[in-house]
């Protein structure tokens, strides 16, 4: 759950955000405070993969938006995660 790329994609799923807004949002929904280096490492990787895209801005704070490929990738990641969660819960019940 602490994979920064997953957290950034999940944060951008409901609308574009700049770096600081992503940090705050991720802390609110996941309880993880990403450091600036970790956040921008994830942003760099995601942009290289074409899963997020920078939005033109007059401000120094540049917002990012999730792309269609990014959305598909996030959906696949969440499905995998869901399988792990369900398997874990089943096993806990039977233990």
């Amino acid at each position, binding site marked *: 759950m602490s994979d920064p790329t997953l957290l950034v994609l999940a944060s951008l799923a409901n609308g574009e955000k*700049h*770096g*600081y807004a992503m*940090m705050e949002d991720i802390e609110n929904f996941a309880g993880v405070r990403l*450091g*600036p*280096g*970790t*956040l*921008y*490492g994830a*942003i*760099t990787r995601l942009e290289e993969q074409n899963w997020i895209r920078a939005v033109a801005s007059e*401000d*120094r*704070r*540049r917002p990012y938006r999730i792309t269609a490929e990014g959305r598909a990738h996030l959906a696949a990641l969440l499905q995998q995660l869901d399988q792990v969660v369900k398997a874990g819960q089943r096993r806990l019940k039977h233990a």
Partner: protein
Amino acid sequence: MNRLAKMLAKLYPKCWRSRYEAEFEALLDEVKQSWRGALDILKGAISMQLRMWSSGKIVGVGAVAGLIVGLGCWLVMPNQYASLALVRIPACCDASTADGRERLDSLMRFLLSRSTLSTMSQVHGLYPVELKKMPLEEVLQKMKQGIQIRPATLGELSSRRAFQAIQIEFVYPDAALAQRRQRSGGALQLGSTGSR
């Protein structure tokens, strides 16, 4: 702290900074900086540098770093000299008999006993620095760790049949003292002193 964070941000690769520096600095202005945050930026910069490097550059830098660490270890670690002595075992100590084994054990116990080691260290002035800082028991323990006793066979030195011996090795930072200790510790000095 914000100044430190911005200085650390300069460690990112130039091509990365040309794309992200302005927005990254804007983020640093908004975030309350801490040592943990600074460490995160440093980690990010190193990771990004490595991502941008070619495999040849990574191998080259790794090799140079390894060389520097190796050189540092070589300079910091003191020289150790190992002195070897071969002591012929009398016929009465033949390890194939129970009585001989008992005598051999007794000889080894004598060589490694507190009184023998203590006398050796006093007579030859061994471990002067350690004796000033540590209790005698710890110094003797260290001395004991520097001594290794193994069984050996000496055939080539005698025209008669091969005979049993024990090899005593003593490791010490001073070559002359290591050899002197061995001369007094063994009845027959046959080995030589060499750097280890």
